């Protein structure tokens, strides 16, 4: 392993497990010292890690207004940081440690991080919305700075020297003029409580007396530290949520309604009663699960169980082939007030040219590589849930409410799991495991099957758009109408006890379905006259439906950006302008805002063009009918922002005229998320965000007939593969701030932004290569081929 001080994960588990009672006692201010363990004291760590965490509740909320909740200094002069976040694989855990190490003046490899344990880490809400570093890193930096301040005060007393004459390096305080006079953090406070109160009306406002360091003084931030979680993920030693086992644990599998909206009429338990390992069938309302001693037994029993279902009288949804027609016709569940800037009507009247286009994006799935899973332990009248829920805290609250248990008796232990991206914002499997464990009085491990995950996970909402643009005689965009419709009614929120799937199937309902959302484009273009209208529609069946919508990586961003940035490209083509110059002109005429999005947008678009080696010319490249080549090459750009982060992507594609296959040969991205905490980890997140977008551009589409989802495995729901991967990916991390070296430069979120413009960039590149404009995602070979054939016909 890279570092001897880096605890192997099982020791970390054991440490956390053994520390458990004392950690809570420690936080409760009992005066007990924190128990710390040396590695040599843990010969049987693996066995210990198998043992359940001490079960005795209750589990009060860790108080974020106490410094001890966030940081412990150990007698060996290492530190553990406790934060209320989770890391879906973007390296945010490593980023948190870097930020906190910098403020505390301790080496990265002398620290550990505990995340997402509702009983011992403060409630920062878990993950979501690319807010981890941007919003929730702030209190982490401030509390670490406060710990350093307190330690310096103690050090001053210990060394009988004024604090101004002291400095810190590697968790050791020394007298500047006499560096031999030292005292370590451990000597001052190792294993003891700080007993320092903090202030803040909300957790993200938590602060002590100390100020954070100016950016120019940061040393750990900005380094490409290797992610601490990767070694244990490549040698097989990490204990994931999926690996948790407990004594007396049993296995459960769900039996889902075979048709959306079906009502359970009866169960023939004799169909499974004699199967080996069978324990019980549990059902309530339309929720059915089978519990067996072993996992393969539960899978078999769930498949074999005979249950009688009655089809609903009304079709739950149109077949996917009719989806967009349905959406256009459907009565909206909500409609926004039109937002008007300038006088679009007048501008359209005098326009030299008016362009109109419609765009369509189907439902797309999370289709997590690892189906939903959780283990629930009901021991001692408490409930502990081991899960990869990205929002562990609302999971705890939701499960407590669902089971009618006091919140203090429920705790959630976040552990690593497959990609989050919103899927585990409402962790259905954790609720199911907890319900079954409560029924059975034994620890229950639940895992979904592939068809269940693809069929019943939350979906990114389908969209239809209509755009209209007016160009003046110089080819300038003078007016734009944007109309968006999103099939997002009854959008699933975070771990609500009355909206998670098990609750829906049991017939539990909130007073009102969630309204859902539909977005307008995020852009800094200056467009003098605009009219924006949006509406939301629902499917006929809104409860107990496999077309549940939920947050999928920047929930509406990729769809909206596809329509808007494709349309901008169409306008540029109509104006016979270079697509980048067309965008730069509109950006230059725009207004600046408080986070300098205008300057930063210009910097990002220019950086992308430079990195790509963009030669200005209008699209498409040539009249492809004139060319006899089988492979048509082209490039396309798209620009947007997400929150405070700005991105521009250029895709270079090859389109095979005979098969319709699109291969993205090269991706270039310019990305400005302010202060960069870890350049390499950021590069990788930007890369993978783009490729996830590429997958949605080329492959992903949820298909269904009028009663069920039919794209239920990797053959029927294809996803990007190794063979689709670009030959080259180039990324420029841009700092387009007008004062790039300012000491308060902030980091902005990076988990989603690079994902957002990919569908648009691909559509624009395909148009550049072929002259064909694809307005319906995804761009699978058949669709591309028929568009090419229609063009030549």
């Amino acid at each position, binding site marked *: 392993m890279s570092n001897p001080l880096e605890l192997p994960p099982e020791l970390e588990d054991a440490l956390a497990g053994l520390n458990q009672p004392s950690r809570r006692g420690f936080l409760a201010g009992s005066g007990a010292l924190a128990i710390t363990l040396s590695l040599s004291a843990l010969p049987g760590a693996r066995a210990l890690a198998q043992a359940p965490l001490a079960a005795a509740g209750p589990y009060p909320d860790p108080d974020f207004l106490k410094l001890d909740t966030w940081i412990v200094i150990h007698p060996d002069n290492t530190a553990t940081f406790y934060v209320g976040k989770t890391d879906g694989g973007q390296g945010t855990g490593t980023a948190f440690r870097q930020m906190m190490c910098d403020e505390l003046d301790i080496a990265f490899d002398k620290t550990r991080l505990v995340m997402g344990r509702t009983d011992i880490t403060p409630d920062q809400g878990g993950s979501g919305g690319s807010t981890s570093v941007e919003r929730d890193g702030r209190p982490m930096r401030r509390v670490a700075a406060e710990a350093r301040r307190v330690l310096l005060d103690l050090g001053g007393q210990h060394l009988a020297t004024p604090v101004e004459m002291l400095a810190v390096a590697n968790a050791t305080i020394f007298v500047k003029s006499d560096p031999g006079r030292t005292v370590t953090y451990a000597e001052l406070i190792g294993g003891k409580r700080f007993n320092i109160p903090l202030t803040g009306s909300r957790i993200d406002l938590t602060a002590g007396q100390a100020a954070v360091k100016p950016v120019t003084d940061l040393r750990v931030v900005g380094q490409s530290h290797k992610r601490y979680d990767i070694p244990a993920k490549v*040698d097989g030693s990490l204990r994931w949520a999926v690996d948790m086992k407990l004594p007396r644990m049993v296995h459960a599998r769900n039996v889902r309604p075979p048709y959306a909206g079906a009502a359970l009429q009866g169960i023939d338990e004799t169909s499974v009663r004699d199967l080996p390992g069978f324990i019980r069938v549990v059902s309530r309302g339309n929720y059915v699960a089978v519990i067996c001693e072993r996992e*393969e037994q539960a899978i078999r029993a769930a498949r074999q169980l005979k249950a009688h279902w009655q089809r609903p009288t009304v079709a739950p949804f149109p077949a996917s082939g009719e989806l967009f027609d349905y959406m256009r016709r459907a009565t909206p569940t909500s409609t926004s007030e039109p937002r008007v800037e300038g006088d679009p009507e007048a501008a359209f009247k005098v326009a030299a040219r008016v362009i109109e286009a419609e765009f369509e994006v189907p439902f797309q799935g999370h*289709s997590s*590589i690892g189906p939903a899973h959780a283990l629930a332990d009901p021991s001692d009248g408490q409930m502990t849930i081991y899960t990869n829920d990205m929002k562990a805290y609302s999971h705890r609250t939701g499960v407590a409410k669902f089971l009618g248990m006091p919140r203090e008796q429920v705790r959630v232990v976040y552990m690593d799991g497959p*990609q989050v991206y919103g899927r585990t914002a409402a962790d259905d499997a954790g609720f199911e495991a907890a319900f079954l464990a409560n029924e059975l009085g034994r620890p229950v491990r639940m895992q979904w099957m592939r068809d269940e995950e693809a069929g019943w996970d939350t979906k990114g909402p389908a969209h239809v758009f209509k755009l209209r643009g007016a160009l003046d005689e110089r080819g300038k965009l003078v007016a734009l109408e944007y109309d968006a419709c999103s099939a997002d009614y009854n959008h699933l929120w975070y771990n609500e006890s009355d909206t998670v799937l098990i609750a829906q199937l049991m017939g539990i309902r909130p007073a009102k379905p969630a309204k859902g959302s539909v977005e307008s484009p995020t852009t800094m273009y200056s467009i003098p006259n605009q009219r924006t209208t949006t509406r939301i529609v629902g499917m006929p069946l809104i409860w107990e439906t496999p077309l549940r919508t939920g947050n999928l990586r920047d929930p509406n961003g990729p769809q909206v950006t596809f329509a808007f940035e494709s349309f901008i490209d169409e306008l540029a083509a109509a104006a016979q302008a270079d697509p980048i110059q067309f965008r730069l002109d509109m950006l230059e005429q725009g207004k600046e805002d408080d986070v300098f999005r205008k300057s930063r947008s210009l910097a990002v678009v220019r950086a992308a063009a430079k990195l790509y080696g963009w030669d200005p010319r209008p699209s498409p490249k040539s009249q492809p009918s004139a060319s006899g080549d089988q492979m048509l090459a082209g490039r396309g750009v798209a620009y947007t922002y997400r929150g405070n982060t700005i991105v521009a992507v250029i895709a270079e594609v090859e389109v095979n005229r005979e098969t319709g296959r699109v291969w993205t040969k090269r991706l270039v991205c310019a990305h400005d998320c302010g202060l960069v905490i870890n350049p390499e980890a950021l590069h990788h997140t930007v890369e993978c965000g783009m490729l996830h977008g590429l997958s949605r551009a080329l492959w992903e589409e949820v298909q269904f007939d009028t009663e069920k989802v039919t794209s239920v495995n990797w053959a029927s729901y294809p*996803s*990007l593969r*190794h063979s689709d*991967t670009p030959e080259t*990916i180039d990324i420029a991390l841009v700092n387009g701030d007008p004062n790039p070296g300012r000491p308060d430069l902030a980091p902005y979120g990076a988990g989603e932004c690079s994902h957002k413009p990919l569908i648009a960039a691909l559509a624009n590149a395909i148009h550049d290569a072929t002259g064909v404009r694809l307005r319906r995602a995804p761009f699978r070979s058949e669709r591309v081929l028929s568009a090419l054939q229609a063009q030549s016909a």
Partner: protein
Amino acid sequence: MSIVKLRVNGATHEVDVEPSTPLLYVLRNDLDLRGPRFGCGLGQCSVCTVIMGGAAIRSCITPVSAVRGEVTTLEGLSKHGKLHPLQEAWIEEQAAQCGYCQNGQIMTAKALLDRNPHPSDAEIREAMDGALCRCMTFYRVQAAIRRVARGTKATGERQ
């Protein structure tokens, strides 16, 4: 149930299971291994991949009764506390995001390099095409494989 004898990562184990039990569940639940994981149960995604007889096989669709010879899992790649060159390359390239599928990526790559130590880029893409990843780490995974393929001296040295 019946007693099935297995050799996994150099050790012999006896488990008492139905012979039709997919190898995956025996590895995970009886032998407490964590490398192979459930992804699809259909042999489509590679997350459950182990190596048997030099080939990368899908343990989720391999009945334990069909196992012949030594099975190597992700845990069996490192020897004497030293990581396999592929695992080292994975760390160097920081190839994982969430990491859930990386067992399939690494084990598929190992089977490839064992039979073809110097694959071309096209051969890497082809051999790896069935190893799915929903974080889309393909670009770095390919880079990690190239890193090892370039450093490989002769067949059989890598064990």
